[in-house]
């Protein structure tokens, strides 16, 4: 992984954090970078299908400024996993992106 691509992942994560900032169900955001794609791990409290659908739809904002980006979003909440802490679902090397404005 190049430093440049890691920086791209961080920037995409930062922009997605801006997009979800007003969403009350969101609890945290992590990003992992790979050779040619970026994964976003969005942790929410238990939520309804409409909210989850809206959150997935927010990825389209990233393509407006990065039309060639490969972005994979996973909206996850504790109730989706049986007997497993949500922390263990997020890759260990993931970088947490602050949700608050800097």
């Amino acid at each position, binding site marked *: 992984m190049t430093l440049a691509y890691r920086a791209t992942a961080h920037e995409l994560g930062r922009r997605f954090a801006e997009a979800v900032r007003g969403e009350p169900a969101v609890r945290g955001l992590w990003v992992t970078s790979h050779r040619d*794609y970026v994964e976003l791990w969005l942790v929410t409290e238990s939520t309804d*299908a409409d909210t*989850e*659908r*809206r*959150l*997935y*739809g927010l*990825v*389209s904002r990233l*393509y407006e400024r990065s*039309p*060639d*980006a*490969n*972005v*994979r*979003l*996973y*909206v*996850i909440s504790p109730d*989706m*996993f*049986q*007997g*497993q802490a949500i922390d263990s*679902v997020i890759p260990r090397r993931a970088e947490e992106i602050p949700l608050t404005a800097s």
Partner: protein
Amino acid sequence: VDARTESHLRTARRNQEIARVLLRAVVDPSIQPPPFEWAAVLGFYAAVHYVNAYLWEKLRYEPRDHDDRARQVSRVSGLRSLDGAYGRLRGRAFLARYKPEFRLSAAEAQTLLDVDLAQIEQTILSALGGTAPSQT
């Protein structure tokens, strides 16, 4: 419609029907909890073929991979309204395949098929002129 479009529509319908059968099936009680998360995988692969049908029929475009296809859903005007439903199916299908202990209730699986996949199906079939794939 083009033969390749029809082929994608037939495969989409097939995957969609297998997903419905899975939800209806009497599952072996030794499998607990019931494997409803696989309905998300089948539903996603139905969505993949609906999107492929649209892209081929309207633009003669074949997506390179899942990332490319998702980008087209977000950017092509006729598909943009589907990005939330498509993303939800893709995300849940990924979690079902790769994340240990991910589970989906029957009700959640039903919503994925009856709301998310149904929206994708209806929007794309409508855009293609209400095309129903011929049986072969």
